[in-house]
């Protein structure tokens, strides 16, 4: 399997506060890799660094062989980032928003059309896509943003709490979509508080706390190792 993302000794400090104290992990092609941990553990900071929003204070990140520090623009061409608290332009219609984003990735109009079509299918918002984003519910915005993140078929989708703000039915649909796209070869790096979601979605999991990875492995492997019935108990055991 090809390694898409390689994170080595990644550190990040905000002034005197160390948010990441040197973490290492890899994500393979078509793999869903999840980061789980409490608030302030360093999950979002890791995702923001990989998506080129934050610069690391130390360590190395390579995506498809591109060095994050030296070639951030090459990395941006191959990723798609869905922040936890993301929004869309309220004055644009849903379809116009998808087209606006598609135009950054497609060379030709035909390719942009195809990308938008894919986005519409993922979003499943029907005629609401012709309405302005400002009229959407939180769940609709989230679905639109997920569609935006996946429609471009990035080499790596970075999803921070992808089902945040969605109801049970929509959450299930979103998880199915992520699974489907991973099977098509898209690698996914995600974070979530929802342990059930992590168990359902991820191929491998990293337990992160206070800027360090405590342990990593498959959900089943970790449960076996800690002799725990679920990931919540695994996490508690790993903390001890």
């Amino acid at each position, binding site marked *: 399997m090809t390694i898409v993302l390689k994170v080595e000794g990644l550190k990040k400090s905000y002034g005197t506060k160390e948010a990441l104290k040197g973490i290492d992990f890899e994500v393979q092609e078509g793999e869903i890799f999840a980061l789980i941990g409490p608030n302030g553990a360093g999950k979002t900071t890791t995702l923001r660094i990989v998506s080129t929003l*934050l610069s690391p204070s130390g360590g190395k990140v390579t995506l498809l062989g591109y060095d994050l520090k030296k070639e951030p*623009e090459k990395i*941006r061409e191959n990723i*798609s980032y869905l*922040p936890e608290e993301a929004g869309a*332009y309220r004055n644009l219609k849903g379809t116009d928003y998808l087209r*606006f984003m598609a135009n950054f990735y497609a060379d030709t109009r035909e390719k942009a059309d195809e990308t938008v079509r894919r986005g519409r299918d993922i979003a499943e918002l029907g005629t609401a896509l012709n309405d302005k984003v400002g009229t959407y519910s939180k769940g609709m915005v989230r679905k639109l943003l997920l569609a935006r993140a996946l429609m471009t078929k990035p080499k790596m989708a970075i999803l921070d709490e992808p089902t945040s703000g969605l109801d049970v039915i929509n959450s299930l649909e979103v998880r199915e979509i992520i699974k489907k796209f991973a099977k098509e070869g898209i690698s996914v790096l995600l974070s979530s508080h929802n342990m059930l979601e992590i168990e359902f979605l991820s191929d491998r999991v990293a337990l992160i706390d206070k800027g360090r990875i405590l342990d990593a492995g498959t959900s089943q492997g970790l449960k076996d190792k800690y002799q725990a019935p679920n990931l919540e108990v695994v996490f508690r055991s790993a903390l001890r």
Partner: protein
Amino acid sequence: MKKFTNLLFKEIRELINKQLIISLLMMMAIFYFIGQMAKTEMKKAAATQKISVMDLDQSELSRGLAGSLKTANFEIEWSQGKDPEAAVQAAKKSDAYLLLVIPQGFGESVARFEQKEITTYTFLRSFSIGGIRKSEILRAVITATNNYLSDNVLKRKVPDVSPDILKSPIKTKDYVIVKDRMAEGSASAISGFVYSQSIIIPIILFMIIMYSSQMVISAIAMEKQNKTLETLLTVPIPRTSIVTTKMLAAGIVGLLSAAIYMIGMKSYFGGITGDVRASAAMSGVIKQLGLTLSGKGYLLLGIALFFAILCGLAMATILGVLAEDFRSAQTLMLPLMLMILIPYLLSFFADVQSLPLPAKLLVLAIPFSHPFLATPNIMLGRYPAVIYGILYMAVVFLVLVFIAARIFSTDRVLTMKLRWGKKKVVL
């Protein structure tokens, strides 16, 4: 380029929203309406006006004075009775703005070369320019009557000498020199005319710089508030393009808004000044002195304005990054607004050249001062000062763009915040 235009069109679409269009149209309509109202008022003031006259003298001279008022387009409403107080009360009830009381013995006193008072009452029913004009016309009629009377006396007493020579034995011939050009005319009249003709320029400059800066600062703050900035920063487009498109879109929409605003202002000023046109003589003097903006002058003024807009946009971009949301962006406009306001107000009331050195240096250090100084400098032929100003603004712009680009290319674009509560910049 395709990605750049994609982003630029989005930025323009975001800026030109329903609220902006409605507010601009409303503003234009309000200015047009006020302008038309003012025009109507001015026309009314110039049209036949009612004046109450109480003639207690009934002499040839008092009748002559009334005749002069008729010639000056006044409609006389004769006040009967002998009591001036009653005449005031009666005039109060009527729609007359003016009351003139000619006392008994007025004609005789003048004939005996005794100064005699006539009393005028102006009923100030509003503070409009139209109302003030009416009393000015009456004053002009009385001055003309005074001149007529004194000229007649002088002609009778000294028939061989012109009354003008007797009244003003010293005659002045005024010349105004601007650089190497000279023309006959009054300095105050010429200055007044140039001021009235160029008063609109600082207003245009002020509006354009303010509009553009406000837009870019709000655009960045809104991206932060609506949580769209993070997504935008991860799409494959250079960060410099994100900064440039925001500035460019704000510049375009700012210019457009200012143009619309100015059309409204023109209509408003047109109403107030009654579409005053320069007299042929004054035009000749102005042209002779070179106090007009030539093609080269307009070009230099345009370049100065362009660089001032760029400086404003670059400064607003940096301030926009410091804002946490739209509301804090409005507060952050304050330093920028002050920097625009200082030269704007100075352009009306003071000459920068005559300021004490520290104050002069402070004003010249503000990049926005230079377009305001450009108009008088161009008219007075001080081209090097204009060019130095443009060069200075270009340098300031490059420094600001460098800072803005540095901020956008690092994570400071997300982490840099100005927190008023803690009174510190978090970098």
